[in-house]
């Protein structure tokens, strides 16, 4: 039990830092939470239950995550907005050969430039975390959204 408690206290700050990076709009730093070879997906509860290969987006390298941020900053047209993550319960499920599998619930409030705030997304991350020389990094992060409906667009990472 003490082992898993220790693991919990090592993993939890990774999520705090991840949410803080996005909420404080330091988007350029976001890809650094991932390994070079990684899998990042945003999908829906419905698509996952039906084992559909296509969700909302999927990236299979850190380079693709960097592309997303470059696209957001230079190409995409959208109303200025930012997020506030509300983190839920962290479940550390298994550890095998240095790989930690976790689940973490989240809700995201979206704040528009006008000041309008709304509950934008809620869901669960199903993650695979590995120890690297630079600390804990995500090898896999699958954001499973509770709803299949997204208001307008998702441009800021989840």
């Amino acid at each position, binding site marked *: 039990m003490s082992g898993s408690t220790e693991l919990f206290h090592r993993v939890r700050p990774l999520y705090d830092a991840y949410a803080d990076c996005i909420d404080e709009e330091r988007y350029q730093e976001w890809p650094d939470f991932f390994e070079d070879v990684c899998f990042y997906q945003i999908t829906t509860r419905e698509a996952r239950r039906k084992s559909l290969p*296509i969700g909302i987006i999927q990236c299979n390298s850190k380079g693709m995550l960097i592309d997303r941020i470059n696209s957001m900053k230079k190409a*995409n047209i959208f109303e200025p907005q930012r997020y506030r993550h509300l983190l839920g319960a962290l479940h550390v499920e298994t550890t095998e050969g240095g790989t930690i599998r976790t689940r973490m619930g989240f809700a995201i409030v979206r704040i528009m430039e006008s000041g309008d705030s709304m509950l934008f997304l809620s869901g669960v991350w199903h993650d695979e975390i590995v120890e690297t020389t630079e600390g804990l990094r995500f090898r896999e992060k699958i954001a499973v959204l509770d709803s299949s409906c997204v208001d307008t667009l998702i441009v800021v990472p989840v």
Partner: protein
Amino acid sequence: MFGYESDTQEETDIRVALSNLVGPAGLVSMEDGVIGSFVQRAIVGNQGRETVLEMGGRTVESQESRVSEASVRGFWQTYRKYMQL
């Protein structure tokens, strides 16, 4: 998006990669959601009535903004001319 049951894994992977271009977070189509949202907000006061948006006015000429349907108007005006409508 759809695939065929006979698709190879490689073909399925290509379809999955292409799906990154479409949908609410699609690199190409996410702006479509913004436009729909703008239009919805603009016409919300007129529920049950008809709303006409004249994007970029009624003329066919170069405009400073991309938010214009001048090119669409130009196409149909030329089409009507050739079709003698």
